């Protein structure tokens, strides 16, 4: 596992550490197998292509896709969500249609929809939260209509840390023949994902937030939807035939994978999935709940700390955001940093939510199951010092 020297690393929601096995996979590729995929006629190219495509099968099984051709490799969650907005959005939205997102979306699942709405004339609606930070299902039910073509929803907010009832939202929107796009960037390291039982039509995540490498991610899309979608990038691999006037394209997923892919990244993603499966989500959730209990009770014991999102136990999945008194999150983070504690502070790429919370920024502490109790203790001790220094 990545060894962060002399710091308590509590910024796992930004990016997680990487196990040795993932580093070894990457080293093995660069060390003795650095070839390209798909087009090579020699044995090594065949082997690496087989391993690369094996990861696609592995992802498909892991997230419960019905076929591996529903798995598109992207450069990350943002890339995947933009692909859906650009390709599916552009071809399926008119000025009669509506898109719904939540107020707690990360900019990556907010701005693409806002912009595609502008481009197509569709209307963007924003569903809010209940006072304790849960998705307001009542409001959503009122907003959804036969005009709603797309609901785009984060499975877990990167600020509030609670899970959204994705399946219920899926049922609501499917009843109106709309589709559900799920941003699983934050949830994938914490809870199992099954696109069938979630009812997701598209689902995106990044490897680097689930013990994998940077620069690679996955977009799941239902076969039938992918079929009707045009490619949005053109290049090698993804074309079928090119002549001076016309080009025909291959089928999904290759249709959406122009250019030489992030081969080391995809192989590393495969090993990261192995790692998660070896540990098991049950163990992950158990250990995280212990960590979160300690973290939340430690923070609650400090009077000046205000915690955002759910106030009851077992509802924060690895993530908790807070402020200390009226102090600015950046000042708090600087003091935590001077105590060797790494947290994030700012609007966390969720400005619409910040506006609703009535703050410009928050401090966020986030764990994986590999985080230690002593790291949590470092954080709590450091938060206790904030007022001493700033008052």
């Amino acid at each position, binding site marked *: 596992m990545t060894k962060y020297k002399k710091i308590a690393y509590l910024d796992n929601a930004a990016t997680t550490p990487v196990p040795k096995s993932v580093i070894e996979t990457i080293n093995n590729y660069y060390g003795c197998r650095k070839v390209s995929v798909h087009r090579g006629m020699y044995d090594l190219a065949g082997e690496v292509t087989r391993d690369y495509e094996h990861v696609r099968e592995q992802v498909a099984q892991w997230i419960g896709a019905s076929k591996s051709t529903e798995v598109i490799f992207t450069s990350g969650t943002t890339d995947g969500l933009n692909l859906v907005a650009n390709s599916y959005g552009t071809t399926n939205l008119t000025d009669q249609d509506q898109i719904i997102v939540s107020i707690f979306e990360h900019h990556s699942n907010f701005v693409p929809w806002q912009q595609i709405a502008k481009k197509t004339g569709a209307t963007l609606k924003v569903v809010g939260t209940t006072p304790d930070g849960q998705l307001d299902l009542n409001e959503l039910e009122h907003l959804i209509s036969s005009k709603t073509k797309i609901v785009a929803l984060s499975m877990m907010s990167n600020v509030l840390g609670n899970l959204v009832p994705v399946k219920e939202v899926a049922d609501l929107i499917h009843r109106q023949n709309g589709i559900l796009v799920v941003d699983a960037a934050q949830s994938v390291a914490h809870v199992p994902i099954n696109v069938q039982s979630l009812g997701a039509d598209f689902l995106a995540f990044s490897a680097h937030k689930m013990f994998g490498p940077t620069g690679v991610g996955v977009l799941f899309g239902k076969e039938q939807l992918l079929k009707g979608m045009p490619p949005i990038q053109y290049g090698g691999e993804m074309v079928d035939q090119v002549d001076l006037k016309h080009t025909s394209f291959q089928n999904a997923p290759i249709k959406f994978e122009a250019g030489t892919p992030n081969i080391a990244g995809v192989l590393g993603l495969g090993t990261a999935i192995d790692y998660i499966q070896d540990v098991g989500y049950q163990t992950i959730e158990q250990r995280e709940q212990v960590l979160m209990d300690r973290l939340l009770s430690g923070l609650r014991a400090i009077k000046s700390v205000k915690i955002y999102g759910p106030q009851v136990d077992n509802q924060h999945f690895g993530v908790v955001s807070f402020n200390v008194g009226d102090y*600015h999150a950046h*000042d708090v983070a600087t003091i935590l940093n001077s105590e060797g504690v790494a947290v994030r502070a*700012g609007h966390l790429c969720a400005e619409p939510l910040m506006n609703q919370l009535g703050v410009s920024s928050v401090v966020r502490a986030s764990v994986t199951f590999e985080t230690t109790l002593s790291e949590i203790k470092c954080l709590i001790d450091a938060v206790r010092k904030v007022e001493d220094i700033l008052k």
Partner: protein
Amino acid sequence: MNNVQQLYQKIILEHANHPNGFGVLESYTHQVELRNVECGDSFQVFALVEERQIKKISFVGEGCIISKASASMMIDSIHGTKIENIQKQVENFQNMILNKPFDENSLGDLVAFKSLNQFPTRVRCGMLPWHALIQILEEINE
């Protein structure tokens, strides 16, 4: 005093809690808004410039201790100064923040920010009001 205590020393906390020049000027010739994209904080700086001299200057906005104190002390330090001299002051302050050679004597209270260069991720906060000022100077010189 360790680094972080030095950064959040009394005079800085004082300025942040009771900033000088906070508010909108009744009349002004220049107005600049700048944002820190990392936290979403934004500052507006107002200036009344007459005869190449900043007659009045003020700011409003939300920010951290560092940016507010920096704005407050900046306003103190340039009040009524000739444009030419302000330019020097800005450079001198920036040099200090970026750990380059600078003239300590001419900075007055601003030397309180001397340790900010130990906090590279906060340099942006300390410089935010100054960047607004630089923009105003550029407008004046156009």
